[in-house]
């Protein structure tokens, strides 16, 4: 266990939050995409987070009563939002169905903006935590002198 491992914890969170921000950007960019390779309109993407448990090393540490390895967070998967698409009456649109209704992506701009702010704040909190760790390491380095 060292403080250098601690940097890894914050770094894992920075990676995860940045991925979340990227997904928000992707969702917002595709807010009006009605045609995708998979067919049909774009589906909103969400990242699922899970605590990184350290795996076998953590289990061993618990039995040998050593300090546990760093944990942090990881993205367990990117999922498509199963909520239904929005239906808009637009008979002149090339992707409209025979009944004249157009299916639009299930992206809610307001929701995405809220997620963006939440992810940004979480990112900032982890940057602060990272800098705190850095200053701790620096203060440890100054012990002898």
């Amino acid at each position, binding site marked *: 266990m*060292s403080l250098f491992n601690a940097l890894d914890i914050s770094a894992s969170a920075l990676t995860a939050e940045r991925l979340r921000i990227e997904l928000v950007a992707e969702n917002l960019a595709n807010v009006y995409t009605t045609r995708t390779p998979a067919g049909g309109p774009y589906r909103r993407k969400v990242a699922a987070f899970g605590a990184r448990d350290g795996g076998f090393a953590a289990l061993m540490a618990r039995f040998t009563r050593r300090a546990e390895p760093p944990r942090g967070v990881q993205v367990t998967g990117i999922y498509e939002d199963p909520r239904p698409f929005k239906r808009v009456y637009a008979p002149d649109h090339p992707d409209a169905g025979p009944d004249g209704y157009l299916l639009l992506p299930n992206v809610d701009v307001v929701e995405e903006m809220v997620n963006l702010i939440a992810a940004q704040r979480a990112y900032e*909190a982890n940057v602060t*935590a990272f800098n*705190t*760790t850095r200053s*701790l390491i620096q203060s440890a380095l*100054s*012990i002898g002198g």
Partner: protein
Amino acid sequence: MYGIWLQDRTLWALEQAIGGVAQRHQALLDNIANVETPGYARRDVVFRDALREALGRSRRLAPAATDPRHFGARPVQAVEPRTVTASGWFMRGDGNGVSLDHEMALLAENALEYQTLTRQIGMRVAMLRTVISEGRR
């Protein structure tokens, strides 16, 4: 762990304390990293009471240990930080027990404690150096 001339109980205690504070720092970082993880229970590290007990300053009535072989006595070096996981206390509907403001405040507090300890260890080392150089500079 040290030579016989460095049998410094204060330095041991400071070392144990800084180890505990560093481990607590990691637990707090983990909490902050998992602020958006559903079902995450916050973790914390406790060592203070054990260290106080080992230093013989506990409020609890305990037999005085004047020798490491004494029964029930834990030497300062054997104090181990313990990780505790909070359970059954959730801030939010997703079962996550982390309050970001609380964790950030604890992180700042813990970091100050770490810096205090490094300063104290530095002073202790400077003291030893003074002794080695017989007070001359």
